[in-house]
């Protein structure tokens, strides 16, 4: 092979570009899809952020950049920023520690009850937004089960850093667990065997082989949880209290309490900066450093990575955390069926009667909105994954970046952006069903893209080339070949989109109206007015719907795509 000088390669970049576009125009469906997706990304992701930025500069008292100087001179805002960042760092660190211990115990030891631990580490993903906060209050609040009943402590100061950190770690450690489980599974145990064989002790194997190989995955999980913690709205709203302000809550209060839209917009911009920074570092720096040791050959090796003592210590830690998760869910169920939490624990269905009478419409609305946005979001995610992995077109990197970016945008920013962007022609959507549906589609499709990209990279590209070679155009190739092959990713994208649509609050709280309301907003109202029993009952109904929906989605996807071949072809990829 010869290497040419840069001048030669750069010769006529315009002609090259024109030729690529001309070639694209010969596949009209592909060309049109790319144009449509770019317009959608521009209107529903970029445009709202731009509106937030512009709005923040229009304050009557402090026009232009003055608004930021004014905000940052306020000690209350400065401490909000500090609180958000330190909470993000602490929650990310603790969640990763817990997630890693779980993942290591499940993939590298032979502790009993692995299936149960795995379940307990995934369950918090389907939590309604206030579940962590409400559980913390039911356990440690003024009438808390542990504080007042067990320990006899009244008015334990659970509001603030401690309570919030506790709720966030329980909510977010599953993210770290799932990432790190994948990473540890992909590290071939033969590498560890090799290190043992070369004379390392078990702890040396862990420090010199396992941990360094897992490090990029850990870094990635840290950054993702940092972003999620910054964006978290439900838990801090309930648990932070006035002595522990955070940016996401302050931006909301600035708008709903003080009717200061530019100020709220400016606060949300301040929140946006660390989020996007962490996202860019995660996407362009950490992801490139991931090691791939997947050989395609299943390697079965006896699990012997840890000593017996370590094994039982890990078991103890896992059992404790699993107990906490169970406790969190247990008190929600108990609280939902109790007459008055902490005072009269006798059984009642009164809370559910109440939920039915005030929340019936919100439940229906939520189901309609989630039902519409879920399939669209899943399909869009798969389509973008297909384009990004398999097709070559100008602007591909931009498409990848913008669509993944929406994951890093805190809901508060997006919510404010949507009310600013879509309250006048040509996009007059305020108060409609459409604004909620669109918001959910574009906020939750990145996970579908990620799952689709990961699965597609496992599928031999020549399978799709064969379809194209046999005369199938891009759309036929996608529906007849690609989609059936990535059905598992499609399934997880649908489940995720549905769960998020059912549990969304941070952006949606700005977008609901009298006509279209959400269960999560109802829960917020109950929590705000101190009716924890009703909030718990709402949460139980929500969890019930999510579990039922997961089963239905599985059945529908299996039926539609006929994935009975999947199980046999998984494992070694499709080679």
């Amino acid at each position, binding site marked *: *092979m*010869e*290497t*040419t*000088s*840069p001048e*030669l*390669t750069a010769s006529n970049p315009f002609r*090259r570009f024109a*030729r*690529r576009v*001309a*070639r694209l125009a*010969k*596949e009209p469906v592909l060309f049109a899809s790319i144009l449509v997706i770019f317009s959608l990304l521009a209107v529903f992701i970029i445009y709202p952020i731009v509106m937030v930025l512009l709005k923040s500069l229009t304050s009557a008292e402090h026009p232009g950049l003055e608004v930021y100087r004014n905000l940052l001179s306020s000690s209350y805002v400065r401490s909000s920023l500090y609180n958000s960042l330190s909470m993000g760092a602490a929650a990310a660190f603790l969640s990763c520690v817990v997630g890693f211990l779980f993942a290591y115990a499940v993939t590298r030891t032979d502790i009993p009850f692995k299936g149960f631990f795995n379940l307990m580490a995934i369950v918090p993903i389907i939590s309604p937004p206030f579940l962590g906060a409400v559980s913390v209050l039911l356990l440690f609040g003024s009438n808390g089960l542990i504080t007042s009943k067990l320990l006899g402590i009244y008015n334990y100061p659970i509001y603030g850093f401690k309570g919030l950190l506790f709720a966030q770690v329980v909510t977010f450690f599953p993210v770290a667990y799932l990432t790190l489980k994948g990473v540890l599974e992909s590290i071939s145990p033969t590498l560890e065997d090799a290190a043992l064989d070369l004379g390392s002790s078990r702890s040396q194997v862990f420090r010199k082989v396992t941990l360094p190989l897992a490090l990029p995955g850990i870094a990635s999980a840290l950054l993702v949880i940092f972003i999620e913690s910054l964006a978290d709205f439900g838990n801090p709203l309930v648990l932070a209290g006035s002595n522990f302000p955070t940016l996401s809550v302050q931006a909301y209060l600035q708008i709903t309490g003080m009717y200061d839209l530019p100020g709220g917009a400016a606060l949300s911009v301040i929140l946006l900066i660390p989020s996007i920074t962490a996202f860019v570092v995660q996407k362009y720096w950490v992801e490139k450093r991931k090691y791939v040791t997947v050989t395609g050959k299943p390697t079965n090796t006896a699990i012997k990575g840890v000593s017996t003592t370590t094994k039982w210590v890990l078991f103890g830690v896992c059992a404790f955390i699993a107990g906490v998760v169970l406790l969190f869910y247990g008190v929600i169920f108990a609280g939902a069926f109790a007459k008055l939490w902490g005072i009269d624990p006798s059984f009642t269905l009164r809370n559910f009667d109440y939920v039915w009478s005030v929340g019936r419409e919100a439940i229906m609305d939520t189901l309609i909105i989630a039902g519409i946005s879920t399939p669209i979001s899943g399909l869009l995610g798969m389509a973008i994954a297909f384009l990004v992995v398999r097709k070559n077109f100008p602007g591909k990197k931009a498409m990848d970046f913008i669509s993944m970016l929406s994951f890093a945008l805190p809901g508060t920013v997006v919510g404010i952006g949507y009310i600013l962007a879509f309250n006048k022609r040509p996009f007059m959507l305020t108060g409609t069903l459409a604004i909620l549906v669109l918001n959910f589609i574009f906020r939750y499709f990145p996970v579908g893209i990620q799952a689709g990209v990961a699965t597609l990279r496992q599928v*031999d590209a*020549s*399978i799709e*080339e*064969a*379809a*194209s*070679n*046999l*005369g*199938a*155009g891009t759309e*036929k*190739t996608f529906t*007849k*070949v690609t989609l*059936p*092959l990535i059905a598992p990713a499609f399934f997880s994208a649908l489940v995720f989109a549905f769960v998020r649509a059912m549990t969304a609050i941070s952006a949606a709280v700005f977008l609901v109206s009298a006509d279209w309301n959400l269960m999560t907003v109802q829960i917020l109202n109950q929590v705000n007015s101190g009716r924890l029993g009703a909030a718990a009952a709402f949460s139980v109904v929500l969890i019930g719907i999510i579990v039922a929906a997961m089963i239905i989605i599985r059945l529908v996807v299996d039926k539609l795509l*006929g*994935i009975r*071949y*999947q199980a*046999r*072809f998984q494992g070694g990829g*499709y*080679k």
Partner: protein
Amino acid sequence: MSVELKNVTKRFRSPEGEVSSVIAVNDVSLVIHDGEMVTLLGPSGCGKTTTLRIVAGFEMPDSGNVVIGGKDVTDLPPNKRNTAMVFQSYAIFPHLTVFENVAFGLRIRKLPQSEIESKVGRMLELVGLSGMARRSPDQLSGGQQQRVALARAIVNEPDVLLFDEPLSNLDAKLREQMRSEIRRIQQSLGITSIYVTHDQSEAMALSDRIVIMNSGKIAQIGTPKQIYDTPSDRFVAEFVGRANFLPAEFEGFSEDRALLKVLGRRVALPKGKLGQEPDGALELVVRPETVKVTREIPEDVHAAGYLGKIVKAVYMGSVAEYDVAVGDAVLLAVVASPAEHGIFSAGDEVGITFSSDVAHPIVTRNG
């Protein structure tokens, strides 16, 4: 249908960054005639697969044109070209049955069900898979999957059939069997075919003509016999088969002979092999199986005989391989059925001869 490549060039960005690029295919021009089977042969990274993918439309050339059956298809996407590829990894659709795999292209063209059934049935018969139509691909062996891939490609009656190292995942016995089957089917249907491989015996057995590629360029085009007997340069001679390269000095022409001095003795080549005075370094390619090893020391100088000494002897059953020192040079000689012709061992003094009619001169121009 004929296939023509005109000055096709394709660059790829080099993995280390966007500063420089690698030329995968460098100004390749080639005509493949209707019904012909042409093999692209070369080491990995020589550009043969990229060339094939350019014909299929999976890669777009940076410059140059692809013409199939007189029609310029350079800017057409793969699904608009009537080419059919058999992939190295088979690329069988794992979610479809054998029947549906073969019927895929026909269904895209919306043929009536009855026609699809009869065509697929005939095709499965041709490749010897009748009775397996309802199977799922994972119930097939590697060889059977390869047959499905072949049937799926030819059922659409393509203008050009493309093979991308289709046999490299099969074991040696099956490879030979599939090789003759592919040739049989290709000849019976008369489909123009391009076959990419790095296996020279596959190329020799299959092809009407072979295109040897090196570093993105065509090194030589010719029939298997031309390629083997009259390689155009050292690369081709080394890549196809094994060769001794003997440095030679040009001495002049006699009536019908070109006279060379090789290892201190005069060798007279037929004049057709070296028409004019060489304008660079001259070497004589002598295939090891044309080197004869004898116990008697030759006396006749004009028979190009040498005195040699066996340095290394390897007995391999059907042949014996000898490294023979002749002066400062070491020649490789491969002797067939050694049990019949006598076996030598290291240290033996032997006579070495080769016929000047099968030796081939190559000229390496300076610079």
